[in-house]
Structures are given as C-alpha cells and as structure tokens.
C-alpha cells in the first residue's frame, strides 16, 4: 500500500515540484519576502476558490463511472468508436462548463473506464480550443465577436483531428489506457 502510494509520485509531479519550489525560491531570493508573500496570497486565494469545483469534478467523474456501464463508454468513445466517438468526446468538451481542475481529472477517469486515448485527447482539446464557457467568459471581452467567431469556426474540426492523430498505432508504446495505464507489472 505504502509502496503503491510512493509509486504515484511520478516524474510529472517531480518536475512540477522542482519548478514550483525552484521558482518560489528564486523570487524569494531575488525580490524578497514582500513580493513572494503577495504571490503566495494570490495563490492561496486561487487554491481555496477552486476547491469546491475540484470536489464537484471528482464527484461527477466518480458518479459517471458508477452510473454509466463501462461497456457504454467503451462502445461510444472507446477504441473502436471511430470518428463518431471522437466527435462525441469533442462535443462533450465543447459543452462542459468547467475549468482545468475539473477537465483533467475527468479525462483521467474516462480513460480508466473505457475511453481510449484518442477520445481523451478529443475531449480535452474540445474544451481547450472551442470550449463555449471559455470563449464567452474570457475570450470575447478581449477580442470581440469577429476574432472569437473566426477562431472558433476554424478550430471546430480540430478536436476530432487531434483525437485521430492520438489514435495512431505508434503511440501504443507511449500510452495504452483502457484501464491498463502505465502499471504493466500489475496482475
């Protein structure tokens, strides 16, 4: 159990830790406690403001996993789901009203409950590129209607294309998914 837990500290987390603590130490060293404290306070405020959304994201993900049978997910957005599966995944991403703190955990849950990596990539890309929520709340005020609409329209097919590329066989060696991510030593 303890070893299993230690294994979860993967290289990704190690990199994040090194960068976080490194940049924090750099700011503290070069610009003093006053500047560092200001940043820390902003970070803390952000952290606490997202906690309820993170919790809701986890809850929604867990409920979806229990409620929707694995076969249904596999059938609709699994490996054999074809272009339609990618389109569905991209559309869910486009419509899903949430921030990164909900999207990425949800994608991680999807790949352990039957979705393939192409669908996960299409889902994330749909949210990143053509997420309605992002476009309306954040992009529109800065760019105005014309730019947003133009970018939206040319980006619309991209989640499906990205998912197709991610399904390329060559990536099998990088990530298999479908309930067997990374830990190949497990029985």
């Amino acid at each position: 159990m303890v070893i299993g837990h230690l294994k979860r500290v993967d290289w990704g987390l190690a990199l994040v830790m090194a960068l976080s603590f490194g940049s924090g130490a750099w700011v503290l060293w070069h610009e003093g406690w006053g500047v560092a404290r200001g940043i820390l306070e902003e970070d803390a405020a952000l952290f606490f403001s997202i906690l309820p959304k993170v919790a809701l994201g986890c809850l929604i993900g867990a409920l979806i996993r229990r409620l929707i049978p694995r076969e249904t997910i596999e059938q609709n957005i699994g490996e054999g789901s074809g272009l339609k599966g990618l389109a569905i995944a991209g559309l869910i991403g486009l419509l899903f009203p949430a921030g990164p703190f909900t999207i990425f955990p949800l994608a991680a849950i999807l790949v352990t409950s039957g979705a393939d990596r192409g669908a996960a990539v299409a889902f994330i890309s749909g949210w990143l590129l053509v997420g309605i929520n992002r476009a309306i709340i954040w992009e529109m005020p800065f760019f105005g209607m014309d730019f947003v609409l133009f970018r939206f329209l040319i980006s619309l097919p991209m989640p499906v294309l990205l998912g197709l590329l991610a399904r390329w066989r060559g990536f099998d060696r990088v990530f298999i998914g479908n309930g067997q991510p990374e830990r190949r030593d497990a029985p």
Partner: protein
Amino acid sequence: MIVLGFTIFLGAIAVCLSLLALKRGRPVFVTSLEDAKGQFLHLLPRLLIGILGSGFLAHLLPKELVLAWFGPKSGMLGTALATLAGALTPGGPVVGYAIGAAALKAGADYAQVVAYVTAWSLLTFNRILTWELPSMPARLVLVRAIVSLPFPFLAAFITVLIKSN
C-alpha cells in the same frame, strides 16, 4: 457572477447524478462518494504545489518579451515564435487573451495571433505543469502534447488562406 453560476450548474449536475445513483441503491452512491473522496485527496497536494508554481512562474516570465515576438509579415518563423510564445505564456484564463489582443491592436498579424491563441490554448507549458500532469497519467499528457504541436501552424495556415481571398 457568471463564474459562480457555473459552479452552481456543476453542483446541479452533481446533485442530479447523485439522485440517479441513490435510485439505483444506496451502495452505488456511497462507493461513488468514496471514489470521489479518494481522488480528491489524491489531487489536493498536487494542485497546491502546481498552483504555487503557477504564481511564481507567471511572475518570472518577461511579458514584454513575449509581446515583442509577434511581428506582422513574420511568416513561418513568426508562427513558430508565436507558437513558442503561446506555449510559454502562463495558463489561467486571462493572460494569453490579454497579450494576444494587445498584440493584435499593436498591429501584429491576424494569423500569428490565431496561432498564438491556439498554441496557448493547447500547449501552455504552465497549464500542463499546474493542472494536467498532476491529474492525468504523464504518458497521456505526452501524447496529447505531441499531437498538438502542428495545430498552431495549421490554424495560422488556414487563417492566411481565408484572409487572403
């Protein structure tokens, strides 16, 4: 206000799903709740570390330099620079749009700004570190990053094609 609205909407989805689960039987709901708690506790320290880093990294990145990389008629090199700039711009909902819009007003090429926003959306190094790596399998993140690389260029290319006609 709108942001609060979305949180309430998320809450509503969660409540509906919970009711559905309860209808299937109490054990379904309880195990879901435990799953959710496990994942939440797994994420908590990771998110804290990621958010700490995002604040300090955003502070350290020279925003003027990122802005200066946009040039009108800068061609493929400009697109490549815009892509790089997009990837280096901190995540969070505002920064990339703010810089992109400012660059557009300052006379930067439309296509380069589209490439920049696309790169910033898909590849922000900062968001990958803050959110994606802590909450997803690292190898899946790698696949997503690799397949995303050509897309800022594709977006710029399509923009040039449409705008020049």
